[in-house]
């Protein structure tokens, strides 16, 4: 379905829309800016990439996942990891490979959608840095506990 048509249906009201303090924001996982606009709303496109933080376990470090919007009809099973992908998105964990993740983003958006590319990369870097800080703090905390 065309992005323009879907936008007309979805812009007034959708599950990700948050209106607060005069701002129109979005909790869309494929939206890296957080503001609901036509170009940044990823779930209505065929080829968006969302950078999403995940909580793997209760006391573990938050990982960052890339969620790539795709438009195939059938659910695919990743042969290697045996994870089933969803109908509308495939995920890539960037636990150790931030360079791979940034290459994926760059390749997907290329030179045509620089704004979206920058937004995704910016979010990736920020989340990764936050992860590193958190990891550092946790290591320091465990060390202090041992002492």
């Amino acid at each position, binding site marked *: 379905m065309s992005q323009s048509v879907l936008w007309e249906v979805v812009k007034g009201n959708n599950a990700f829309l948050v209106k607060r303090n005069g701002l129109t924001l979005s909790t869309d996982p494929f939206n890296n800016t957080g503001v609901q606009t036509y170009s940044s709303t990823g779930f209505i496109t065929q080829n968006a990439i969302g950078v999403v933080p995940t909580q793997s376990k209760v006391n573990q470090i938050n990982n960052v996942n890339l969620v790539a919007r795709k438009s195939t*009809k059938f659910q695919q099973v990743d042969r290697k990891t045996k994870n089933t992908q*969803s109908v509308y998105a495939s995920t890539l964990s960037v636990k150790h490979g931030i360079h791979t993740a940034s290459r994926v983003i760059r390749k997907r958006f290329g030179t045509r959608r620089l704004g979206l590319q920058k937004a995704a990369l910016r979010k990736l870097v920020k989340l990764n840095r936050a992860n590193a800080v958190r990891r550092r703090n946790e290591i320091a905390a465990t060390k202090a506990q041992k002492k």
Partner: protein
Amino acid sequence: MTSVPLVSVFSADDSSKVTAKHIPLPAVFQTPIRPDIVSFVHTNIAKNRRQAHAVNPQAGMQHSAESWGTGRAVARIPRVSGSGTHRSGQAAFGNQCRKGRMSLPIKVWRRWHRRVNIKQKRHAAATAVAATGIVPLVLARGHRISQVPQIPLVVEDKIESYEKTTDALNFLKRFGAFEDVQKVVSTKVVRAGISKQRGKKYRVRKGPLVVYFNENAKLLKAFRNVPGVEVVNVTRLNLLQLAPGGQLGRFVIWTQSAFAHLDKLFGTYRYSSIIKDGYQLLRPLITNPDLARIINSNQVQEKVQPAKTTKVLHEVQKKNPLKNTKAMDRLNPYAKKQRVAAAAAIKANTKGTKKIKKNKALKKASRAAYNKVAASLNDATKAAVQEEQDIKVKYFSVQKGAAQTE
């Protein structure tokens, strides 16, 4: 349209097994999405379940109140007749009065229901069905479909014979629809307002809609008690269920026979509907709705004039060139060089002129002299102190350590 979109039918027992690989999508799913029609039809049809209510026609009017007229230093509103109670002489009847009747009291013969043209209702239903096959719309409506194997989800007819709720629940779990049910359960809230005392205690979200075909199907009872799940026969599809709240994109689970029946029900673009007499599916106003593609196409770009650049005549805010170096450079490009030269000249002056060197030498000499005097003074004071101590120790037999303190 050269290629027809295809859809798989899944086995009821195993979500990874497909019983029918490629079934063509019924033409309803290609109907243009018309939120305007759906919104209009929904607002009207939603009024049709209302029950008549009214205010007691005698409310506030059960007095023999009469106006006292003018000349008695009171407002001319009708006043309650009689005496012996607080109520006598109080204002009555008016909507503005305490205990008066409301203005325009509600009558039972208010027009509660709305009729909508059949064609509009059918177009709305068709659009709503089409929207259930579009993933972003189902996401936008808030359904949790990340584990669902396919949208639209078509399952073999076996589920129509489910009798037990456990079977129904396990089926939903197998097909990733249980996440949606869990959402319904976890967001059940006590309703705000008086309605909670009038039989509508909880506000419950909508979960999946299961559509079946065979009239003898038992699955209604199996799915009945699962929160959020609604079951409906495909011949009785309801816009209020397909687009709750006027919002397109309900998550629908179709049985195979129900899915196959859709072509007969709504017709296709080749033949009009068999069941809805004379109904033809809505045709799109634009065949290619992808605006971005149209604008970027060669045919359009060839004809289009080059983009206008906005010519900036001057800055919005004036900058003072005497204070703002960039503004100065814009006006006088040589100013930068002048500044650089001036700075260099000052630097040269401060480093190597004779006068400055002389000053430096003088400073050095005077400091040396001062240090000398200070040093000799220091020695003198030390010697004096030492002499005093010696005298004390020698003549006044003060202890050597104690002499220090005095």
